[in-house]
């Protein structure tokens, strides 16, 4: 926990700002090297593994094994999201996710089944400490591509570190081993996502002329959309 203020400082101290619609990328040469590594890692390991996992334990009806792993992991991430919503001053999504956590942990057998979405029509409201920082007025900062984890920004990196620490402090609420299993489940379900969105990832990562630039653009736009930030609007008729 002592490292937390240092990480926060490192992450935000050098926050580069860019004009709206543009991406601050002062670390581009380093990012591109990491991208090259991530791309070969994907081709050598993630793509084959996720393709193999995609069909595993898939019954004719109901959730497959991979989906249950994902459900279990995201259920244990819910208390952290509740805390973040409260830090953002948003009680409505906080109570929404709290209700999800209670329903899925009990009726959903420890979070294996997502009954909150299926029976109560309460899909997850995704948030994290990165969004909390956004609400508090911190800019996204420079673009980063992290080894294995992929695209990020300075703000998202700090957010992820804090979320993992928050999740870890879940060891006080649930058993420490359960919290660790939850983290492992989330990493495994990431590999599952690689299978589900395989054709999208393939087309961006292995078929575009500059996959680094495509990933960067996709990531920044997605994050702006998720945080309801206004991105660039192209108006070809404005000239």
């Amino acid at each position: 926990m002592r490292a937390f203020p240092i990480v926060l400082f490192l992450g935000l101290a050098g926050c580069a700002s860019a004009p709206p619609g543009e991406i601050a990328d002062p670390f581009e040469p380093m990012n591109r090297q990491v991208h090259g590594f991530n791309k070969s890692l994907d081709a050598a390991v993630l793509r084959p593994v996720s393709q193999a996992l995609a069909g595993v334990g898939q019954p004719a009806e109901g959730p497959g094994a991979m989906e249950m792993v994902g459900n279990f992991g995201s259920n244990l991430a819910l208390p952290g999201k509740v805390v973040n919503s409260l830090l953002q001053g948003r009680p409505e999504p906080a109570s929404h996710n709290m209700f999800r956590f209670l329903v899925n942990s009990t009726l959903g057998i420890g979070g294996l089944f997502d009954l909150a979405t299926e029976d109560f029509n309460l899909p997850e409201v995704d948030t994290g400490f990165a969004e909390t920082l956004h609400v508090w007025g911190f800019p996204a900062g420079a673009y980063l591509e992290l080894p294995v984890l992929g695209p990020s920004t300075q703000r998202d990196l700090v957010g992820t570190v804090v979320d993992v620490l928050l999740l870890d402090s879940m060891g006080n609420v649930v058993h420490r081993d359960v919290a660790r299993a939850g983290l492992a489940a989330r990493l495994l379900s990431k590999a599952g996502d690689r299978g589900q969105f395989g054709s999208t990832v393939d087309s961006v990562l292995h078929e575009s002329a500059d996959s680094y630039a495509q990933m960067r653009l996709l990531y920044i736009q997605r994050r702006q959309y998720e945080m309801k930030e206004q991105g660039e609007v192209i108006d070809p008729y404005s000239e």
Partner: protein
Amino acid sequence: MTRIPNSTRRDFLGRGVLAVAVLAALPAGAQTGNQAVALVRATVDEVLATVNSGRPPAQMYPAFQSIFNRRADIDAMARAALGPTARQLGAQDFAAFRQAMSGYVARKYGKRFQEFLGGRIEVGAARQLKSFWSVDSTAYLRGQTPTRVEWHVSDRSGQVRFFNLIIEGVSMLASEREEIAAMLARRRGDVRALIADLQRAG
């Protein structure tokens, strides 16, 4: 004799002109909004009918390109995707680029339209954005969470056409602008080589 001060009169006149302009613009604007929604509905219906026709994918691409040619403002899209380079091109080169891009987009996105098999797309309302209309829609595809797609529609070409799709926040035109810039850089700015590459890509 009472004199209306000049400034007040100008103000009054100005407001009158503005009010008339707003009144004149309102029905036309609402009409274009409805036309934008109608365009999106027609496009969605045509794409889904093609996807569900059961034809082999290779035969679907010409059908997608025909839909795209009739429903999209390819001129505006080609200009936006090519950026400042578009202004330096002669009419013939630009027409060749435009043609190559329409085939490239039909193949690249047509490949992905397979995911629409057995799915449905709900078209929502139109809202004004900058100089154009944005039409909301949601795609419900089998085994996936609903996907929000915004259609950017304009009548500036003389006809109501779409020129951009925003899929869960990701702008198709911005992606293609980045991609085409990278392809052009790989050819060291040679547009004719880019056109040849585009005819094979997608």
